[in-house]
């Protein structure tokens, strides 16, 4: 299962990286509007006559970029806050909890549109990635905090403290290594969630205004009436790619659960 997951995921990364070499990417108009799949352009053309293969590869690159960016930010923030709060407990924990709740309460797209309207360049992939990351860390903080607070009562921690290690040292040397596998799984899920969020935000129409992403491809398909006209190549390939990436990540995540928790493997 792990193998399948990794294979799928790396397969998509491969397409994103190597694809431009195999299929020359062009954003030029190469044919009539919504030409059906055929010959060299086996994924059809879009409403501006552009080749879907090129669009999808570019879109894949963008979506992966946003997913990773958001995932890294979210995981880092969530882990740091979660570990510290869980370990310290008491009012520090309560305070960090409050901060976490504050971020849960604000929907990410509100922040997205408000911040992007202050930037003259409008919404770019990086901005979207940062904002998704900064609003999605909350559940990782929660999970990591639960783990960390369970760990703090373990013996070797008490020993370390008795030896006079300060909090930072304890956290880095004694707790983090235990949680590493957990944090890695959190990271995988955050990347998946980042890709889904970006697609959702683009679907609403709040997506990047200067690049192609899988979400903007779907948004265009919907806005130009592809659904009603039966132009399936406008939205089905992009949907499949998103689902496959997320599915692959979930597979990796579940199989890792099995690795670190042998009971699940049976």
């Amino acid at each position: 299962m792990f193998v399948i997951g990794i294979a799928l995921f790396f397969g998509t990364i491969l397409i994103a990286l190597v694809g431009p070499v195999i299929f020359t990417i062009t954003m030029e108009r190469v044919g009539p509007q919504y030409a059906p799949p055929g010959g060299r352009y086996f994924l059809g053309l879009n409403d501006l006559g552009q080749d879907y293969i090129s669009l999808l590869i570019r879109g894949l690159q963008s979506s992966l970029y946003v997913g990773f960016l958001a995932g890294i930010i979210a995981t880092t923030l969530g882990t740091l806050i979660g570990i510290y709060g869980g370990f310290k407990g008491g009012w520090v924990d309560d305070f960090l909890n409050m901060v976490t709740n504050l971020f849960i309460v604000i929907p990410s797209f509100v922040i997205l549109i408000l911040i992007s309207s202050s930037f003259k360049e409008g919404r770019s992939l990086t901005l979207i990635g940062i904002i998704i990351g900064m609003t999605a860390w909350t559940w990782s903080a929660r999970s990591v905090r639960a783990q960390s607070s369970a760990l703090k009562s373990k013996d070797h921690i008490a020993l370390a403290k008795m030896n006079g290690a300060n909090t930072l040292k304890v956290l880095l040397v004694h707790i983090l290594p235990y949680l590493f596998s957990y944090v890695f799984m959190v990271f995988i899920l955050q990347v998946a969630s980042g890709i889904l969020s970006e697609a959702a935000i683009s679907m609403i129409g709040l997506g990047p205004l200067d690049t192609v992403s899988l979400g903007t491809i779907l948004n265009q398909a919907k806005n130009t009436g592809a659904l009603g006209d039966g132009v399936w190549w406008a939205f089905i390939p992009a949907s499949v790619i998103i689902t496959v990436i997320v599915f692959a990540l979930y597979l990796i995540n579940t199989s890792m659960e099995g690795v670190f928790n042998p009971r699940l493997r049976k």
Partner: protein
Amino acid sequence: MKMKGLSQIKYLLVSALLLGLISCQAKKETETGEVGFPRSKTLYLAGSQWGDPNTFNPLAESWQAAWPVGDRFNLMYEPLITYNSLDGKFEPLLGTLISKGNDSIVVDINPEAKWSDGNPVTSADVKFVFELGRRFKGAATAYAVEFISGINVANVDVNGAKVERLSFMVNKKGRNNPLVILDLLQAIRIVPAHVFEKLLADNNNDFGAVQKLKIDANPVVSGPYNLENYSNEKIVIKRRDDYWGNKSLYAGKMPVPQFIIHPIFKSNDHFAIALQQGGLDASQTFIPRIWMKKKDKVNTWFESSPYFTSGALPLLLINTTKAPLNDKNFRRAMAAAINYADIKELAVSGYSPDMQPGLIMAVGLEGKYFNAEDAKAVGVSYNPENAKKILADAGYKSVFKSDGSLDYMTDKAGNRVPTLSITSPAGWSDWEAMVRLAVKGMRDAGIDIREGFVDAGLYWPALPSGNFDLIMHKPAASVTPSLPWSRFEAIMSSRNWAPVGGDNKMNENQGRYNQPGTKGYNPAVDSLLKLIPTLSDEGKLVQAYRELNKIFMQDQPALPLCYLPEQFYEYSSKNWENWPNEKAPYAPPLLPWVGASTKILWNLKLAK
């Protein structure tokens, strides 16, 4: 198991909640007593109401009031006359146009016109709405007093009947513009003075308070339909069988559909799907590739391209105060770089006839003012080689990267030209496509420009403030008697010229073209703009427009992109037939509640 019981309880709770929530929305049942409006008596039309209906107050701002009270809709409240955008003639409604001249415009009130409460429509009603500006500064029709200095009422005898004759006096000290008065006569709807005077009195003469009233409960109207029911999903109006116009204008016939329902869709593709499935009878929306729906009996005015009649000109307005856009050669080069054929085919699905240079459309009612020789001699058409030549001659150099794409551009002095951007609202799919294609064409010719899609919240304020390089705009978007003058006025008039910056706002000529008081100021533009509305001689008009258009083509303060219809007119013959089209042009191609197209309602037949 404990869980089963729990889940059963949850199931019951949920169903009860669901039922309760939905029944909270219960309103009165339909009048027919049957459940639902009978399909054979109902017309479903959409595309004029976007967003929740908030007010049906005819004195509210026209963009706030819901269908059918906003804009120029005349199913509930009616204007004095209507303008037929096909043949350019004025058709009578509450009044009849008697004469138009540079001193006054004369309209007779139809003596048979009545309100739904039985009172006749009189000059008091007309004066009330046209002179609101003298009493209240914030009224939506307040600007009418700049054009109309007064309304004189005379009682005359026409064919034995006593008729009130209104003379709208041209405000010579104000704008001195009889053309705009004609616009106002077909746009401003007459409201019952006796109703609103009473409301004003009840509210201590606070106009703002009266403007906030919804006026949605059995309003007093003069038109053929009245408000029946509305919600955030649809608006329903019902035929008034005692409408005065049935006897006076239609020889006793009634409109055929008893109900007209306007569903409010939340996204574009729903209109297309509904039309195809027969849930919608006509629509006013941009539906791409409309020819693919012919098999579902969806039709347009023309059977082949351009499918629609032209009425509006979307264009890129240029900020002429900013370098290098202040160089008219640069602007002409931009015009030569845009592939208009691609825009026609890809952005608007072929809904435009071939575009010609200049601000006057070469087709339709304006076509008589279009001069083909001037267009060839002075105007700029798509020609990428010519674009590059113009740029080179004016001293601009474009540097391309190794893969063929544009890197940057330098001007005469060798300084880098900053990347220009086209401001356009995100989410309007036909505009987006136009902008993308325009950018592509210009970059291929070496002009450093990119798309600047922004949210509506940033787009609307950018226009009057001038904070843009280029901006998408569609001025004078309805076909009114003052075209094509109003389009020139909206792009080139130096009236109220104010520079970009601070709180300065301009509501016309937002590109700040032709700054008065400078060396480059061309007085011919403003004098022509002042002159044209006063001309009645056809020959002089042709000459004046020719000069104005020549100046436009030479200076190119804006880049027209294609010809679009004033309204998209697509209809389905699944349930109703006998819609007007090019073979049966008995009414203009507009949905049957605007202007001169209301008569469609009397001519529809049920499909077999």
